[in-house]
C-alpha cells in the first residue's frame, strides 16, 4: 500500500511539473507580448530603447531558460509574481476571485450532479419508454445549448422583461448589506448564473448515471434482490445506486475541477468576478504572471480532485479495495 501511495505521489508530482512548464511556455508561445500592458496607452510614441527598458523591468528581456529558472525558483517559495495589468500580487488577485468561483462553480456542480442523478434514476427506471425518451431528448437538448446564449436569454426574460433578478455582478456593491441581508443579496445575484450553469452542465451526469444504472439494473444480483422480495426502493437505493455511483463520482470530480476555469462564459455574461473571467482577460492582455498563477491553481485543484476520487473509490466500492490489496500482494 505504501509503495502504491508513493508511486501515485510521484505521478502527481510529474503531472504538476509538466503543467507548470506548459503554463510557462504556452503564454509565451502566443504571438504578441504584454508590451501594450506595460507601456500604457501611448505605446506608439515610445522609443525602441524605452520599449526594451520596459520589458527589462519585468525580466522579459532575459532568455527563456533564465526566465523559466527564475519562475520555478519563485514558485517553490510560493511567489506567483506581480500582475502586469493590475499592479498587484497575483496571489492576492487569485484569492479575491476564488470565493466567487467556488460559490458559483461549486454550488453549480453539486446541483447539476443532483439534478443529473435524479433524472438519470428516473429515466433508467423506465428505460426505453416514453418518459426515458423524453428525458434523454431534453438532456441532449440542454447539452447542445451554448452557455452564453442561455445566460443572455435568462437575463432578457428574468431580469429585463420580468425584473426578478439583477443583470450583473455578485452583490449590490454600494448597498453595504450585512448578515442575512447580504446572504440574500448574494443568493439573488447568484440565481441566474447558477441556473445557467446547471442547465448547461447537468446532462453529462444524467447520461453517465442513466447508463450506469441501466447496466447495474441488468445484473443478476438485482434480479436476485427482487426475487428475495425486497421492495423496489430498497433494491434501487441499497443495491443499484451504490454500484452505479462510481462513474458519477468521477464525472463530478472532473467537472468540479474544470468548472474553476470553465465558467468563463457565464462569468462574462453576468459580470461575475470569478477566476474564469480573470484568465480570459489575462490571455487577451498577455498578462503572463496571472496566467501562470491561475493555471497553477487549477492544476493543483484538479490533482487534489483526482486524489480525492482515488481515496473515495475504495470507500465507495469494496471491490476496488480488494483489487488494490491484490495488486499490492502480487507486487
Amino acid at each position: 500500500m505504501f509503495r502504491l501511495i508513493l508511486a501515485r505521489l510521484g505521478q502527481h508530482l510529474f503531472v504538476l511539473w509538466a503543467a507548470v512548464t506548459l503554463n510557462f511556455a504556452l503564454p509565451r508561445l502566443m504571438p504578441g507580448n504584454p508590451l501594450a500592458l506595460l507601456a500604457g496607452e501611448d505605446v506608439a510614441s515610445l522609443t525602441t530603447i524605452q520599449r526594451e527598458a520596459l520589458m527589462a523591468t519585468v525580466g522579459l528581456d532575459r532568455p527563456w531558460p533564465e526566465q523559466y529558472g527564475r519562475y520555478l525558483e519563485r514558485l517553490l517559495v510560493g511567489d506567483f509574481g506581480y500582475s502586469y495589468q493590475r499592479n498587484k500580487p497575483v496571489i492576492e488577485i487569485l484569492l479575491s476571485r476564488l470565493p466567487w468561483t467556488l460559490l458559483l462553480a461549486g454550488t453549480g456542480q453539486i446541483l447539476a450532479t443532483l439534478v443529473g442523478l435524479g433524472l438519470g434514476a428516473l429515466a433508467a427506471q423506465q428505460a426505453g419508454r416514453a418518459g426515458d425518451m423524453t428525458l434523454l431528448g431534453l438532456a441532449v437538448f440542454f447539452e447542445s445549448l451554448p452557455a452564453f446564449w442561455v445566460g443572455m436569454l435568462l437575463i432578457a426574460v428574468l431580469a429585463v422583461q420580468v425584473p426578478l433578478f439583477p443583470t450583473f455582478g455578485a452583490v449590490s456593491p454600494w448597498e453595504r448589506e450585512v448578515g442575512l441581508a447580504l446572504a440574500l443579496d448574494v443568493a439573488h445575484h447568484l440565481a441566474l448564473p447558477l441556473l445557467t450553469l446547471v442547465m448547461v452542465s447537468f446532462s453529462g451526469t444524467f447520461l453517465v448515471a442513466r447508463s450506469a444504472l441501466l447496466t447495474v439494473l441488468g445484473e443478476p444480483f438485482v434480479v436476485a434482490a427482487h426475487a428475495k422480495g425486497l421492495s423496489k426502493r430498497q433494491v434501487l437505493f441499497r443495491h443499484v445506486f451504490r454500484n452505479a455511483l462510481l462513474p458519477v463520482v468521477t464525472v463530478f470530480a472532473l467537472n468540479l475541477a474544470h468548472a474553476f476555469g470553465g465558467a468563463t462564459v457565464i462569468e462574462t455574461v453576468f459580470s461575475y468576478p470569478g477566476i474564469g473571467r480573470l484568465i480570459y482577460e489575462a490571455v487577451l492582455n498577455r498578462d503572463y504572471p496571472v496566467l501562470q498563477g491561475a493555471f497553477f491553481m487549477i492544476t493543483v485543484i484538479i490533482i487534489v480532485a483526482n486524489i480525492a476520487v482515488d481515496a473515495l473509490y475504495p470507500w465507495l466500492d469494496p471491490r476496488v479495495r480488494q483489487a488494490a490489496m491484490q495488486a499490492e500482494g502480487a507486487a
Partner: protein
Amino acid sequence: MSTQPLCISRKQVLNLLLTSALLAACSAPGQPTEPAEPAATQAPATAAVATEAPPPLATATSVPPTATAEPISLRVATITDETTLQPYTYVSGYPGWNMLSLVYDTLFILDTNSQPKPWVATGDQVSADGLVHTLTLRDDVRWHDGQPLTSADVKFAYEFYQANNHGRWTLPVRDIVSIEAPDDTTVIITLPAPDPSFPTRLLADVPIIPRHVWEGVTDPKTFENALGSGPFLLAEYEPEQFYRFTANPDYFAGKPGVAELLMPIIKDPTTVFAALKSGEIHATTRELAPELVAEFKADPTRRVLSGPGYATTLLQFNNERAPWDQAEVRQAVALAIDTRMLVDTVLLGLGTPGNPGWLHPAQPFHDPAIAATYDVERAKTLLDELGYTDTDGDGVREAAGQPMAPVLLVQANNPGRIRAAELIAAAMQEIGIAVTVSAEEGTSLTAKVWPDFDVAKGRDFDWTMFGWSAPVQIDPLRMATLVDSDVRYGTVNIGGYRSAEADALTAQLRVTTDPEAQIELVRKLEATIARDLPFVMLWYADLNYAFDPAVYDGWVFQMGQGVFNKLSFLPGVTP
C-alpha cells in the same frame, strides 16, 4: 490498476490537455474590448490657442435650477476597471482618462467642439517667438483636502511627469526647457521650439497632482492616493466591481449636477444594455451598437444622444509589399469599394463614409473638395493599364507573374469589421483581386501588423482592417504620425508608406503655429493622402449614447468623443 474504473494515467494526460485547451479556448473570438489601438494623446492643436485671458467661466449662479431638489445618485456603468484611478494607474485612454478627469483638473479643457479652452488657467500669453507661455491660474481652486492649488503644484506635476516615466505625458513634457512659478498664480513654461499642439496635448491633457501628497513618491505605480481638485472625490473603489464618487460641493466651476456617481464595472456589452433597460443603471460609457439605437429611441423612458465620432475604421495596405506598393494599384482597390454601402450595411447608416484624405468631414481642417469616388470600371481600366490582367483565365489578375491574392486580416472580436472585410472581398472579386479574409485574435494580429508597436520593426501582412481612436483625429496635426516615413515622427505609419512630398509637408507642420498656415498644410497633406492612399478610409462611426433622462439629463456631447466628460456633470458651465 487496470481493474479500476478509470485509468489514472489517462486522467493525468487529460489534466495536461486541459491547461492547453483552456488557453486555446480563451483566445477564441468574442472578447468585448477593442484590439490594441493605443489611444494616443489628445492632441492638437489647433490654433485656437487663447493668447489673451478669455472671458470668465459661467459661474454656478448662471446654472438653471435642476428639476428636482433631491440629491441625485447617478449610476453609470463603465466598461473597464481603471484600478486605483490616479494618473499612474488608470488603464485606458477612454473611458479611463475621462474618469480620471472627474477627480483631477487640467490647466485647459476641451470644449464641446473639442477645442482647448482655459480652465484652471485663465489664459496663456505666448511670446512672439512662440517659446514662452505665461499662464495665469485662478486663485480659487482647492484640493479636495482644502489646500489651495497653486503654481507650485503645476510646476511639481509637470516635473514629476518628466522624472517618472508615463506613457502619455512624459513624451510631451520631456523637452520643456523650464517651468517657473514666480508667484502663486503664475506659471511660465519655456519650450525648446514652438509647439502647435501645446494647448491640446499638454494644457488640456496633463492632470495636475498635489505636491503636498506626491512629494517623495518614488514608485508612482503603487502609490494609492486619488486626492485631486476635480468636481468629484473618489470615495470608494472595489476592484472589478465599482467606483463611487461624491460631488465636490466647493468645485470652482460650480457644484456638480449629481451628488453621487456610482460606476459599476460591466465589461460585457450585452449585459450593460440589459442593465440599462432594466433600470439598474442610468447610463453607460459604452456607445450603443447600431442595431440597438432604434430600440432605445423607441423607448419613451430612455433618450439617445448622438453625434459624429472621430474614431476611424480603415483598410490598411502594406505599402512595402508588391503589388500594393504601387499607388495606382491602391487607387484601383479604393475605386472598387463603395464606402456608402459599407456604412449602410455594417453601421445601418449610422456613420459617415470615409474621406480618402483621412480627416472626418466635420473636422474644420478638412478640405471639402476632397471626396471618395466609387467607379468599378475605372478600377478595372487602371489595373489593365498597369498590365495586371488575368492571363491564365482563373478570374484572378496576375501582377509580375503572381496572382493578386492578398490576405485581409481582421480582428476576430469585431463583427462589424469582419462583415466589412467580407463585403470588401466580394467587391474585389469584381475587379479580379482574390481576397482571403482571415480573422485573428487582436494581440496576435497586432504582432503581425505592428510588431511591438514599433514601426521600425517592420510588418508582415498584405492588408488589414484597422482603426485609430478619436484623439488621432481631434488633432489634425497628428496626421503626420500616420504618413511620415521617418520612424521618429511617423510613429503610427504602420503600412510603411514613403513619400518625399508628404514628409516635406509634415516637416513644415511641425513648426507652423499660424492657424491659417496650418489649415493650408493640412489640406495639402489630405490631398497627398487621398492621391497615394496608403490606406483606404472606410468610415467614421457615429457615437450614440442611451440614458435615463428622468434621473439625469445633463449630458453634453463632446465633438467626436461622446458624452462621458467633465462638462456633462457641470450643468450650465461653458468653458
